[in-house]
């Protein structure tokens, strides 16, 4: 059971780099990389909202639950 993060696919479809997204949401590249590589253990709502705002998506587009 795990939560999948589809950040790679969203960045590609929006033609945005991870560095650009990090700057726009006000996070360090290191922290955003932790999320992208699936190593994050938790995500703040404020982080989730900022990413959805910049990528123009819904939380369900970014995260998925896999059994």
């Amino acid at each position, binding site marked *: 059971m795990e939560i999948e993060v589809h950040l790679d696919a969203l960045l590609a479809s929006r033609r945005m780099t991870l560095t650009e997204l990090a700057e726009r949401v006000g*996070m360090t590249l290191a*922290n955003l990389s*932790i*999320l992208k590589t699936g*190593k*994050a*253990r*938790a995500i703040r709502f404020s982080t989730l909202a900022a990413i959805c705002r910049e990528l123009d998506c819904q939380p369900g587009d970014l995260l998925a639950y896999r059994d």
Partner: protein
Amino acid sequence: MSSSAADDRLLAILRVVIWTVMVLLMIAGAIFAGLAIALPFMGPGGVEDLNLGTDPAARWALIAMLGLGIAVLVLALRFLWTLLAIIDTVGEGDPFVPANADRLERMGWLAVAGFGIAFVMGLLAFFIKARAPEAQVNVELDPGILFLILVLFVLARVFRHGAAMREDLEGTV
């Protein structure tokens, strides 16, 4: 001066103070050891200088006190060495680790042991004074040490919770 620079300066001063105290404790330990070794071989003249009277039990009690005094100094050195390790983690910006909770608990137990040994030294001083009233032996037990012991154990629990909370936050983006 920025808060961070002031903190670094404070930590540096603390390290110097602790190292100075440790050196003084080692010197005191060497003096105690020398006296403990010399006492059995001291002639009547030397024993008189210490006002130990003629009762040999007073002399042996003093030797035992010196041995216990060395034990207290060793405990104090270990205490300060552990404190230095905690200060190092503060300098690294990462003090809320389980190792520091263990260190604080160890410091608490070292203080308990030191207090216990000092209590026995007090009994020996009382014994010596009964046999040689002029002897210059005094052991004062500071009740503040008991408060220190309590604070150390409480701090150990605080740091253990802090480390657990930090662990929870690890990997949160």
